[in-house]
């Protein structure tokens, strides 16, 4: 199948190095300490953060750092074929683990010993790149909850189809069987914290694809920063009216 046509356009009309439209909103779950929804094109996820709070299971308490927990789930209506997914399937267990470890790397856990931070992410619409969208949403939600972080972790995927590196794959491109590289970076430190890849790629091409994904992460980061600034401004204005 042709994923990049001779004019250099992809199936959904993007250029190879073009991202999907990003939309983000902060404070979508009123009961949560921090929450955000994040959209990358048709992929839409929602994240809620509770904590830092008391550790529920005392045996898990750590005296030198906070306990971070994460639960990833996909809504039954999020995919095209609507089948009921069991809660603890292997894919979501793995993604939960990946998101947890990625967020743990950026949260300053040593500032909140003997406490627990819960991150819940739910996929509302899945159109490729759910993993990246979840991490971006979780970052926003953590920032909204006011949890101290080293940096804003951002994530983006890139692939390689029709011998062209493509940024931010959608579902059709993702399931084409080509390589799929998901990268999560700490943009200020310029370090890679999350890196997942499957299918087969020669090493030099892999380097290019990873570089492209990193560029994508940086673009996401500037967008997230804008959203957070905007949110902070509205909060300041509201406070000004309140007083």
């Amino acid at each position, binding site marked *: 199948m042709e994923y990049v046509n001779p004019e250099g356009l992809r199936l959904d009309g993007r250029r190879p190095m073009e991202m999907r439209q990003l939309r983000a909103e902060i404070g979508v779950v009123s009961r949560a300490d921090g929450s955000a929804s994040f959209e990358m094109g048709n992929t839409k996820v929602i994240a809620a953060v509770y904590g830092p709070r008391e550790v529920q*299971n005392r*045996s*898990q308490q*750590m005296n030198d750092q906070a*306990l971070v*927990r994460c*639960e990833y789930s996909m809504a039954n209506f999020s995919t095209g074929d609507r089948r009921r997914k069991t809660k*603890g399937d*292997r*894919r979501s*267990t*793995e993604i*939960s*683990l*990946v*998101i*947890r*470890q*990625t*967020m*743990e*790397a950026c949260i300053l856990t040593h500032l909140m010993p003997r406490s627990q931070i819960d991150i819940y992410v739910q996929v509302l619409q899945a159109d490729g790149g759910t993993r990246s969208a979840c991490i971006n949403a979780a970052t926003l939600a953590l920032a909204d909850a006011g949890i101290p972080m080293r940096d804003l972790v951002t994530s983006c995927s890139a692939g390689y189809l029709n011998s062209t590196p493509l940024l931010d794959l959608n579902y059709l491109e993702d399931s084409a069987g080509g390589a799929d*590289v998901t990268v*999560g*970076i*700490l943009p200020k*430190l*310029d*370090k*890679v*914290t*999350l*890196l*997942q*890849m*499957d*299918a*087969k*790629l*020669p*090493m030099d091409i*892999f*380097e290019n694809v*990873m*570089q492209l994904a*990193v560029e994508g992460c940086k673009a996401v980061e500037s967008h997230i920063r804008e959203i957070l600034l905007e949110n902070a401004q509205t909060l300041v204005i509201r406070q000004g009216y309140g007083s």
Partner: protein
Amino acid sequence: MEQRLGNTWRMTVNEKKFIESALESELRVDGRRPFDYRALTIKFGREDGSSEVQLGQTHIMSFVTSQLVQPYRDRPNEGTLSVFTEFSPMADPSFEAGRPSESAVELGRIIDRGLRESRAVDTESLCVVAGKWVWSIRIDLHILDNGGNLVDAANIAALAALLTFRRPECTLGGDDGQEVTLHPPEVREPLPLIVHHLPIAVTFAFIGDEHMVIDPTHHEEAVMGGRMSVTLNANGDVCAIQKAGGHGVMQSVVMQCLRIASVKAGDITSKIKTVVESYKTDRALRMVKRHAPINAVDVNESGGKAKQILEGQKLKSEECSVSQSDDMDVEQGRINKRTDKNRSFTGGPSSWDPYSEGVNTDELKATLASRGSVAVPMNLDNLGDTIRDETKSDEPLSDVNPVSSSTDSAGKEMATSKEKTLQDAVKPKNKRKKKKSSNTAAV
């Protein structure tokens, strides 16, 4: 959703500091340099498709099995490949019985991604009837001892098992050409899988801010801030990468890791290939033996089987409280062993005989005579007269021999039971049991 903290073995601060400060001078606690691999040994089981890998302290067993199943609807002409991991609770204090933990799931997914998404195993050749029957290959990984770096060891175990696995051959028949006939391995040689390339996992641990080691032990895993598993093949293609969070690393470091890993992958690939080659030649030699003179094989196999049966029936013979019979069982076992050994010598039977001291020579002659008679099933009944207990071992022989019919063996059973009347009259229960066992053997 969290199991990692229940019984996790936690390291003392001193130990952690020791590992970190030793790394400052490029030393590791087990004496390796940062980019040295631990010793790797690969062993194979007697059956095809099983392997046992030892990487330092880490010990993993792998079994590959196959089954005919319906294919997935979206891929009607492709077989399936699935990886299952079992973390035995004896391998590590933090492993718990029951549901697979997060790390077990992650391990399975990494192996699975490396093998499946890179199309290492040709799944299209596993199709029997498109949309109806395909082979499903299942890899079971059992962690027996966790000495760190389970990913690499499990990956090697899975590959070794896949390379030696053989699935039974099947053909299509029937009116519509849709009927599948499976051929047992004795009739047609089972087929090996088609493996295009070997994706080798190489794991790096990031300790402290700038230290990086390859193949971490479980001590180093307790200290590390992040881990990266890179799966590549010998051609330098990257098949999978897993770095699930943890300490961030520079992009240049990632590429450096990839280059180091590709060298290691080459070494490991050649190691696996040589081991598998030697296994295959061994297997071929075994096959030659199996096809050699039928008599010899019959004796060997039936001898082994008889031994098993004897062990099973030892209880019974004890019930009979015939002290002699028990002794004879043991003696016969010894003789079996010896004859097996002799068979492997080409220059005739060896005269060296450490066991003959305690053996009654008359009995020995008798048993040896019965051994010779195996090839001639007609003599079986006469033998029943010579030695009472010998019949026990003869029962399974009759089922090994395809010529003897069920009625034959039943008749023989009658004869033997007649012989045993003296003892068996005391315990009729025993007799009934024996009847049953002989029936099942005949069927």
